[in-house]
């Protein structure tokens, strides 16, 4: 075996020094700041910590831990590094097309609709949903609760200001998602940036919520939680699936990311597939 012995701990066990340092860092962050990343998926977590180490110009995770525990500003950067998820308007247009054709007809049968966007990041998908509901004529009786654990991204989501270049790239997504108007009608452009019409924000409540440590806060007809749970390990995924399940009313709809699945979770049997190929499930038990 060519494995260098310095990478093994004394028992020849499974942990190398970096893994030990990561455990210590996460434990310290939890004890000192109350944010719990201990059950995040290890591989992507390690990459994100590595990126932060480069930005902070430190040579080891232990040095990073020193900075994070003693400098709240560094802790803020740590939160951003670990929690900001890249997203876009009408991400996976087919999902929004299926939402429009399969979910909206169900929602039209309700007098009032509550939607939870869990882990909304910078808000692009919240505005996407608001546009679909507007075009389908039911936005006025919907309320969207858009939550994220990161206050900085929530602030950006609330402002609804995005780069104009990006917006122009989103036109084709909008069209593929079944958009019925001109996408540019939904925002006002100003030099390099675009701001969404306030009418899209009218029934949206942005607020901080941590899926790992906070409880359910309402009963919803729809929960969208897309490409958020991929950052959690299976134990934590199961726990959060319990939270989502308990927050859905009977026949409520759960929407996940394109390559996420409820197949490896304990709640598989409680849902039926609403649209084959898209990750839209309906709570049936």
């Amino acid at each position, binding site marked *: 075996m060519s494995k260098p012995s310095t990478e093994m701990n004394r028992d020849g066990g499974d942990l190398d020094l970096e893994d030990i340092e990561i455990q210590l860092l996460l434990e310290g962050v939890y004890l000192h700041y109350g944010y719990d990343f201990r059950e995040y998926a*290890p591989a*992507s977590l390690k*990459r994100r910590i590595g990126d932060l180490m480069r930005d902070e110009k430190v040579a080891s995770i232990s040095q990073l831990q020193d900075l994070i525990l003693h400098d709240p500003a560094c802790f803020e950067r740590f939160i951003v590094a670990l929690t900001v998820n*890249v997203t876009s308007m009408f991400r996976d247009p087919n999902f929004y097309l299926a939402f429009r054709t399969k979910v909206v007809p169900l929602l039209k049968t309700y007098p009032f609709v509550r939607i939870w966007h869990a882990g909304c990041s910078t808000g692009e998908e919240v505005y996407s949903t608001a546009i679909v509901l507007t075009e389908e004529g039911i936005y006025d009786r919907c309320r969207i609760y858009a939550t994220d654990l990161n206050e900085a991204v929530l602030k950006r989501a609330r402002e609804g200001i995005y780069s104009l270049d990006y917006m122009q790239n989103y036109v084709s997504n909008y069209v593929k998602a079944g958009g019925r108007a001109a996408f540019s009608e939904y925002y006002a452009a100003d030099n390099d940036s675009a701001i969404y019409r306030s009418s899209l924000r009218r029934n949206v409540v942005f607020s901080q919520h941590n899926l790992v440590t906070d409880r359910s806060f309402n009963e919803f007809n729809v929960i969208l939680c897309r490409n958020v749970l991929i950052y959690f390990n299976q134990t934590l995924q199961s726990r959060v699936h319990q939270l989502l399940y308990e927050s859905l009313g009977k026949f409520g709809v759960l929407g996940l*990311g394109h390559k996420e699945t409820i197949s490896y979770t304990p709640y598989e049997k409680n849902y039926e597939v609403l649209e084959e190929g898209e990750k839209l499930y309906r709570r049936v038990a």
Partner: protein
Amino acid sequence: MNYDLIVAGASLGGYDALALLLGALPENFHLPLAVVQHRSVDSDELLSTLLRRACRLPIVEVEDKQPILPGTVFIAPANYHLLVEKDHFALSVDERVQFSRPSIDVLFESAADAYRDKVVAILLSGSNEDGAQGIARVKARGGLTIVQDPASAESARMPAAAIAGAEVDHVLPLAEIAQFLNDLVHSSEDYLWHGRSRQMH
């Protein structure tokens, strides 16, 4: 010589190389293979469909937390990074790495961290430098590294960058990489056989 996982990466000109490589594997090939092929954001399942025609092994587009199974080819889905954990895959939508999502570096580096010297990493044709860091990490962790001979690659830049960045174990033309993998299976079959017969005595 005993490996648990093969990871492969390809970019421009890589589809033909992948199809040839996977097509040369026998039905009873028992190691799991994880593959990143650079492609457009919305290319969806086309790559898997095409590879299914070329390859005798089951081809699967990975879903989050899918278990790593033997004798199966796992393809990184479009617009996600594919990462390896101890016994399953994970996905991320993090920023592009080397202008790519999925990125070969992300697959290789996470495989090296989770499987250490039990990984075989294969880098094929490509026109950027994704994969070079991943090859270096696999090598540093004691895994086996194989790079397509740049002279035989449709696009030489990616294999050349990897060769420049690490002491690669084998630089081989495509046909010999396929042969190498087949030998790997047979040598571990020998290993299993001898291991078993030793236990019997």
